[in-house]
């Protein structure tokens, strides 16, 4: 769906490599989305906007200011995190108990971000380079950019798991996702945890935007497809489940690669939607259950 993967040869190792790379990127995109819903009960339709902002921050810092791809990545990670946190504090915190209002506001935000970026940078995709060059892995050729995107995505996902499972703040985050009243009873402040989650989700989405932008180019509407993907992945994995989101990302990523490879690449956008419908019909609670974050 993202059009991120180079045309594949009918080679098993190539297929596996592409599945791993694409799925880890999808997991990174979906993690923030599921965290915000799992902890705050908020459906953040502006999640895709963070991806777009991340890609364009990196484009400005690396290409226009000339600081290089990795500085651009760091800037995107930090700035989208801070912006997302400010967005929560300035707007969402006041309306978070009104889900319909949150959906409307985040949708409006997403559209506004797209329009501003299109106005400022035009509608042509911008080239975003992390690293140039290629490497051969198990008989398949992978770009350094794809490799770095995979490695850093995996690192961020593992870091998120470690944070949630082994730190005091991470456990407070899990606890809040399970029971807001229970969390308040032990002195955990839900709003503080929500802020932490919005900052984290924004940063992850920003990084994902840089990785996606460096593979397919940065464009004003690049956040739309990941948002739809996030829905499919998160519903498949179980809304709010970190583990489920990673697994869901691998299922959707695998199906997409297999569709491109063995069916028809033009059907790739249909795959996550079919997954979404199938899960809603057959197992609406998802693979790991709903409305909790279990790591």
């Amino acid at each position, binding site marked *: 769906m993202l059009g991120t993967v180079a045309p594949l040869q009918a080679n098993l190792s190539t297929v596996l490599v592409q599945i791993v790379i694409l799925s880890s990127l999808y997991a990174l995109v979906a993690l923030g989305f599921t965290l915000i819903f799992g902890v705050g009960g908020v459906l953040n339709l502006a999640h895709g906007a963070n991806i777009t902002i991340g890609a364009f921050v990196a484009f400005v810092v690396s290409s226009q200011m000339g600081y290089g791809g990795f500085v651009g990545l760091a800037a995107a990670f930090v700035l989208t995190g801070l912006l997302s946190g400010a967005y929560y504090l300035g707007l969402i915190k006041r309306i978070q108990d009104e889900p319909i209002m949150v959906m409307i506001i985040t949708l409006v935000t997403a559209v506004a971000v797209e329009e501003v970026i299109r106005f400022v940078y035009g509608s042509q995709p911008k080239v975003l380079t992390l690293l140039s060059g290629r490497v051969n892995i198990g008989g398949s050729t992978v770009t350094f950019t794809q490799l770095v995107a995979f490695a850093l995505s995996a690192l961020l996902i593992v870091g998120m798991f470690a944070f949630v499972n082994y730190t*005091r703040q991470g*456990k*407070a985050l*899990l*606890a809040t996702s*399970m*029971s807001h*009243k*229970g969390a*308040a*009873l*032990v*002195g*955990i*402040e839900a709003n503080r945890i929500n802020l932490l989650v919005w900052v984290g989700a924004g940063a992850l989405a920003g990084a994902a935007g840089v990785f996606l932008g460096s593979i397919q180019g940065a464009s004003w509407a690049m956040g739309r497809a990941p948002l739809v993907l996030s829905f499919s992945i998160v519903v498949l994995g179980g809304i709010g489940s970190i583990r489920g989101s990673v697994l869901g990302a691998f299922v959707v990523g695998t199906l997409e690669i297999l569709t491109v490879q063995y069916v028809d690449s033009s059907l790739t956008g249909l795959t996550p939607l079919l997954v979404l419908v199938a899960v809603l019909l057959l197992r609406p609670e998802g693979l790991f259950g709903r409305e*909790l974050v*279990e790591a």
Partner: protein
Amino acid sequence: MDWSIPGMIAMAGTADEAAADETEASSADATTTTGDGILTVEDCAVSYGKVTALRGIDLTVGEGEFVAVIGPNGAGKSTLCNTVSGFRDYTGSVQYHGTEVGGQSPRDLVQRGLVHCTESRDLFGYMSVEDNLTLGAYRANTNTKERLRFVYDLFPALEDRTSQLARTMSGGEQQMLAIGRALMGDPDLLVLDEPTLGLAPVILDDISEGIEQIREEGVTILLAEQNVTFALRHADRIVLLENGEVVRRGSPEELREDDYIRESYLGG
């Protein structure tokens, strides 16, 4: 006054009268305490929209004291607990350690030693027993390992299930866990809301024993309880709430002798 008709329906019409008669029925002063007042509630009222859940509540809980609030379903016991622990807005005054509760977040109150164990328990169902307990000490300035030891000694059943998910435990075990989690916060004032609700008699004995030990540790307890026999067994003072108002108060001995209490709550 005719106290012969028990239960809520009759009491709906007699609560005002009972409240007026309250001072006659009890020889205890309305706010008598056995020490310094940790909790002082004065003329407190709470409403849910147009429905008044509590009105004119006066209550003081002294240092180290065990006060039980009894009453039927819907009397306002849980509302009182939620108000005291900062979860509900109120009019009048609710002071904890001399500071008004209104305006303080539940987090601040927990940090200052006011810990609430709710009727619904509100455990972290997909977390282990030990994680639930450890999070209970989230705001406490104590040695977590020592607190864990204290809780495990109090409820040995929990130590056998440290890695079990809270949601897979029986109701009695969950209640022990909820009380244990509250104790991890090293409370000065422990607010216990209906700890015996729905428990089998054998589990009730364990909870009863645990509460007695907590009391021996010097923890001040405010208990909300529908099980009057249980409350009379443990408390220093009893307050009877009906329809959001205090209609009786006194020592367990005094209330055992009260005709209305005997007929309405102790089966004659």
